[in-house]
Each structure stands twice: as C-alpha cells, then as structure tokens.
C-alpha cells in the first residue's frame, strides 16, 4: 500500500492561499476603490454608468468575505 500525498497537499496549499480572508478582502477593497474612481473620473460616461454596479459588487463581496475564516 502506498500513499501519494503530494497532489492533495498542493491542492490544499492553493486553496488555502486563495480562500483566506486577507486576500479576498484585498480584492474586494480594490474593486470598491475602482468603482469610486469610475464614479468620479472625467474621462468616460460609460465608466461612470458602470461605477455603481462595480462599487455595489465590491461592497457585497467585502461583506461576504469578511465572514470567511482567517
């Protein structure tokens, strides 16, 4: 009987790296910041139109991921 532990360790490592509160909060924060910049930029009306959706998405994401384990 042989146990190959390498793939499962690699998978768990990747999941651990991605599904932690810190990185997810950082992503949500970046989305919120991008949304606010889109709201107030003077360059494109299209970007302004999508700003609310972006900020709302970032805010909802932040609220959800702040409940994820450390």
């Amino acid at each position, binding site marked *: 009987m042989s146990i190959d532990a390498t793939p499962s360790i690699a998978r768990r490592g990747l999941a651990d790296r991605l599904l932690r509160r810190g990185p997810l909060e950082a992503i949500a*924060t970046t989305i919120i*910041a991008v*949304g606010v910049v889109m709201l*107030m*930029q003077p360059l494109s*009306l299209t970007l302004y139109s999508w*700003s609310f959706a972006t*900020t709302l998405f970032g*805010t909802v994401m932040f609220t959800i991921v*702040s409940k994820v384990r450390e």
Partner: protein
Amino acid sequence: MNELSASSRITYRAVMVRPGVARRIRGLSDRTLAWLFITPTIVLLLAINIFPLLWTIYLSFTNYRANRANVPTIWLGADWYQSILTDPDIWAAMQVTAHFVIWTVVIETVLGFGLAYLIDKKFRGHGMWTTIILLPMMLSPAVVGNFWTFLYQPQIGLFNYVVAFFTGRAASSFQMLGDVTLSPWAIVIVDTWMWTPYVMLICLAGLRSIPDYIYEAAEVDRASKWRQFWSITLPMALPFIMLAVLFRGIENFKMFDMVNLLTGGGPGSTTEVASITLKRAAFESWRTGYSSAFAIILFVTVFGLANIYVKALNKVKSR
C-alpha cells in the same frame, strides 16, 4: 451602632415593599439583563436608521413625490438608477465632488503631516501651539461657513485684503465666491483651514507610536535624518495617514453644510457637489423617488469606502 441598625431597617423595609419585583429582577440571567438594557437602543436604531434606509430603497424604485403624497405610486424598477447613471449633469456634479475631495485630502494630508512632524519635536511652547492649531476644528461648520462668507467679501473681506497685500491686485478686483474659476478653490481653502488640525492629530498619534529605540538603532547605524524619515518615520506612520485620508475622503464626499452656506452650489453649478444636487432634487424639484435612488448610489459609495476605512483601522489597531 444605632445608625447602622437604622439603615439596616430602612434597607429591609425597602426590600420588603415589593418582594415580587425584587425577586423577579434577582432571578434574571445576565443575558436577559443585557438584552433589557440594549433593547431601547436597538428599537431606536431600527426606527431612526434601518427603517428609513429600507423605505428609501423602496422609494427609489417608485415615482413617489413627497409634495403629492396622494397620487398613486407606480413601480418603476431601476429607471431612476439608469437615468442618474447616464445623466451628464450628475456626472458633472460627481467631478465637482472629485475636485473638492482630491484637493482637500491632498492639501490637508501634506499640511497635517507637516504640522504633526513639527509639533512632535516638542519645542518650547508646543502645547500652546497645538491648542491654537486645533481651534478651527472645534468650530461648527455653520459658524465657519458664515464667517468665511464675510472674510471672502470683495469690499470688506479680510481675505481679499491679505491677497491684495501680497499680490498688489486691488482687493475688490476679484470675488472668491462669485467667480467661476475661484469659487471651487474658495471651498477647498475653507475646508483645509478647518480640517487640517484633525489630520494633524491623527498623524501626531502615528508619530508618537513609533518607539525611540528604532531611531536609536538607526543612529548607531549612522543613518542620516533624511534616511530615517523615509525608512522609519513615513512607513510607520503610513497606516495612520491612510486612516486620516480615508476619513477625510468619506467626510468630504458627503460634504453639504459648509458648501451650502458658502456658495449654495454656485455660481451656476461650479461648486454643486453631489449632496447639493441631491438636496435640490429632493427639496426643490420634489423628485423624491429620483433623489432616493441618487441617495442610495451615494450611500453605497460611502459604505464601500467605510469598509476600506474599517480595514485600515483594524490594521492600525493590530500594531
């Protein structure tokens, strides 16, 4: 001895007056008592904050007008949101807000950090200077708005005379609040004057939290003052600076009172920040549904920024 026995008798009588209530209160668990104490606050919070918020969200999807409350309300879906997010006038108001927010935050941060750096040196009379610098922050925005309106008067205003003294221009040759180019800067100056001390306080807290032994180690390594500033002072005070930037950014994004008192959004719409546009839509045009949708858009933006603020605050706390 007699006094003691008398007080014991009074206590005994007091307990004996309503034995049922006393027993019932004594029998409550800590958790129940806690709920009893916080229930009034929760009820107040629901009535004043949560219910109006939910009601505003509902109104933002309808054609409701507060001055025609008897007219049947029609469900419009996301029409107001679409209208606001494709309106070039609202976009222009957002750019005016951006001008106000960016310039006030940049100037206040630079000046506030500079003042904090100087005050942190503990020179003679630094306590007195700290108090003097903090004075504008303690005033009401209504008072500040009114007296800066007088200071900006082209005929009698002190500001115009000071500018005239340094530039050689006639004091009555320019109007800070009536000029299309100058009025956006007039509100930036007043906000900077009022809120730089606040930024200074936060930065001062950051500077005072840096342990002396780090500087002593840098001295041993013969690091120059310039190097100490860039490698120790600024990185260690950065979370506090971020906190000040976010707080002032959020506050200025929803700034209303001071701008309303100083310019009322004018001349034209050059100083019409988002909150002034919102007030005009809600209480001058009486477009309640439309203004509710606009308020929700601003609320989501402020809520999003507040999330970032809380994250920065936790980072500062963890130090």
